[in-house]
């Protein structure tokens, strides 16, 4: 423990996450935490500068919002444009898109779990900062690290072989998909997915039996709160990642299903002076409070939210894992470290769903795109479930099919309030009487990493 000499701590950059953020911790006279705030440091302006661009170009522009989940921006923006232009892509194209979403999500989850989060669990939150990373992980467990590196790489390359470009993809086009899946490509992908599925199951077992259990109590001690949850469900109320109704569960577990086009009825956004990121909240609560065990208006998204709002998974192995999870933790689950657990269940689901799609006779269909689309004025809302949470695109076009308005709510934005409250609570519990340590501050960041922002 170190005696703090300053009453303001600035933890920056928050690390092993994707974006740019800083945590400011303010101490009171007794050396306890009066407030803690996570500031997101930049506003990149995509919503504004895509105005005036041809709508069909959107899917090729918005990918640059996030190089970790470009596919999800590629897909959600395409869906919004198609709604605005009133076109429906052929069924094979829809299946190819969902397949790509699964294939892109698999390496993303491996990246997050092994490269960003696992060093804390494997090396310990108190490992020296210089070792607490994937290089340290490779030193401590070379076989595991090499397997994770290979699996992530293998899936990225498989996706690239089929679609041309895996980071900042181009294969999804307004009106369909740019190329059909050939039989030999289908067989190659099946082999990749089979390997990934085994790795997913092994990772799930490792996390469930070894890595996560020692941390459950520690996270409980860092504060836990009830909140709302947002996710997407299919007609049978199962987890869906590509399409379906949105489902918002409130702090008391009451669920409301609604069509994505009605998002403005259920969600509103607040702003704050100290961060460039907005704060969505449940509209029916009438406002948002970043405090307490039962914070007003706060809802969360991403993997844990999705398994909270859904009844189950439509695939057997993921469902089996969910049964174990529910038996142990119930529903809804609020503990932030269980985001990792939920994320690995989704990794299993993505592999199973990819296999299912690859066995669908329609997947190799030749009709992958509408021949020609007339630009027109319209309004469209499109969404997908991204690894970081529900991703909403809302656009308007003019007669020439040019974008006139775009509103984007990415997963990390939905989780802004949740991430802030989790870190504030942890800081309040752990930093007492002006004493702190690197381990404590890393534990506060572990709360953030659970959200995979």
């Amino acid at each position, binding site marked *: 423990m170190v005696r703090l000499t300053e009453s303001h701590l600035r933890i920056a950059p928050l690390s092993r996450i994707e974006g740019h953020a800083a945590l400011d*911790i303010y101490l009171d006279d007794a050396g306890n935490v009066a407030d803690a705030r996570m500031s997101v440091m930049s506003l990149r302006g995509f919503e504004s500068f895509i105005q005036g661009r041809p709508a069909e170009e959107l899917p090729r522009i918005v990918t640059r919002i996030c190089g970790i989940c470009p596919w999800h921006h590629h897909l959600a923006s395409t869906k919004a444009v198609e709604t605005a232009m009133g076109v429906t892509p052929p069924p094979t194209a829809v299946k190819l898109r969902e397949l790509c979403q699964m294939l892109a999500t698999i390496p993303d989850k491996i990246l997050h779990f092994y490269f960003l989060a696992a060093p804390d669990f494997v090396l310990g939150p108190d490992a020296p900062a210089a070792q607490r990373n994937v290089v340290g992980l490779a030193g401590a467990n070379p076989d595991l690290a090499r397997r994770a590196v290979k699996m992530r790489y293998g899936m990225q390359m498989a996706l690239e072989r089929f679609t041309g470009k895996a980071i900042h993809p181009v294969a999804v086009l307004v009106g369909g998909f740019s190329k059909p899946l050939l039989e030999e490509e289908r067989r190659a992908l099946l082999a990749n997915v089979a390997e990934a599925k085994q790795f997913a199951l092994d990772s799930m077992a490792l996390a469930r039996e070894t890595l996560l259990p020692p941390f459950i109590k520690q996270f409980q001690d860092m504060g836990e709160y009830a909140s709302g949850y947002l996710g997407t469900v299919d007609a049978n109320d199962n987890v869906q990642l590509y399409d379906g109704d949105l489902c918002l569960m409130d702090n008391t577990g009451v669920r409301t299903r609604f069509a994505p086009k009605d998002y403005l009825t259920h969600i509103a956004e607040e*702003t704050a002076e100290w961060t460039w990121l907005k704060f969505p909240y449940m509209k029916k609560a009438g406002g948002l409070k970043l405090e307490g065990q039962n914070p007003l208006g706060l809802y969360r998204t991403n993997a844990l939210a999705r398994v909270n709002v859904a009844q189950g998974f439509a695939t057997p192995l993921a469902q089996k894992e969910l049964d174990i999870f529910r038996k142990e933790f119930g529903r809804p689950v609020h503990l932030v470290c269980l985001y990792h657990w939920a994320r690995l269940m989704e990794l299993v689901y993505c592999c199973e769903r990819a296999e299912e799609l690859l066995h669908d006779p329609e997947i190799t269909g030749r009709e992958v795109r509408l021949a020609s689309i007339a630009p027109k004025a319209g309004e469209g809302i499109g969404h997908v479930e991204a690894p970081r949470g529900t991703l909403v695109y809302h656009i308007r076009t003019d007669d020439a099919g*040019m974008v006139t308005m775009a509103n984007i709510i990415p997963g990390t934005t939905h989780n802004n309030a949740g991430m802030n409250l989790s870190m504030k609570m942890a800081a309040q519990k752990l930093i007492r009487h002006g004493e702190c340590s690197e381990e404590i501050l890393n534990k506060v960041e572990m709360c953030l990493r659970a959200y995979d922002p």
Partner: protein
Amino acid sequence: MTTLAGESLNSCAGCEVALLNLGETLLDLLPQIQIVHLPVLVDNKYYGQLGQSSRLTLPKAVVGLVSGGIRNTEHLELLHAMREQVDVLVALGTCAATGGLPALANLTPEKSITEFAFTQAPSLAVQGPNAPMPQPKNTSIPEILPQCLPLSAHVKVDMVIPGCPPHPEWIAEGILSLLEGRPAAFPSRSVCSSCPTWRKGTPGNGSEGNRPVRRMLEQPSYDPEAPLSSMQCLLEQGFMCLGPVTLAGCGGRTGSPKCIAARTPCRGCQGPALSSSIPSVEYVAALTAAGINGATMPDKPGYISRFNAACDALLQLRESTRA
């Protein structure tokens, strides 16, 4: 052991994912490299590990890899700190090299960007002039700069690794050349030079001479069973393809251009080919040569400057239209 520091500025982290896409090559490189700073993977902090320092510091390193352009005051502070602490400053990716796609923000006044996000977006609880806005002046968030610019607009850059993101082969080439103390061999020709599609050549002067640009609302024609070499050049098919003015190499040393492999046109993400000083002028010439009327392009800046909106010519244009 060579020390390496990395920063992502106005970046999407795709360049860092591309670094990971070295796969096992990266694991083999690791014993030769010590990463002293790289926020996406490593926990080194700017204000000391306990956050008690009031001054931002970065560790010394031999190589500094920076992705992303310069868009706000924090990016600028970090860039200068990086320049001071590293021997070789590498601009990783198109954003760092030219501003990249996010520099399209330069076409919109920064005030209208913040106003849309914080006073007009349909999901805001409070819209209009009374909506609370982020206040960089009274808080610790950075201020947005009027323009998004490449690193070289602010400091001396020693090496540029092109691509959005760069092909892992070029990242490896950049790092290895530094480790081995030799010049790096990066691509220098245009995307078309490595494109396998077939070209008819100069169109006849009659009916094909003045065709309108086709938008990607139509379908290029090709046979999915047949190799890329049996597809006609997409520009000749009438689509906007920025291959003629874009630097080659997105497919690595031997691969086809990535978008062409996906049967879609190039949008210029590697940045301008070295030979083309003013891509917009050269591009219109390429369109004319293919018998296409450049004036029918629906959104000239959005196509031709998609990855190059920070280039001087455009900035000047913007200044002159303002005046």
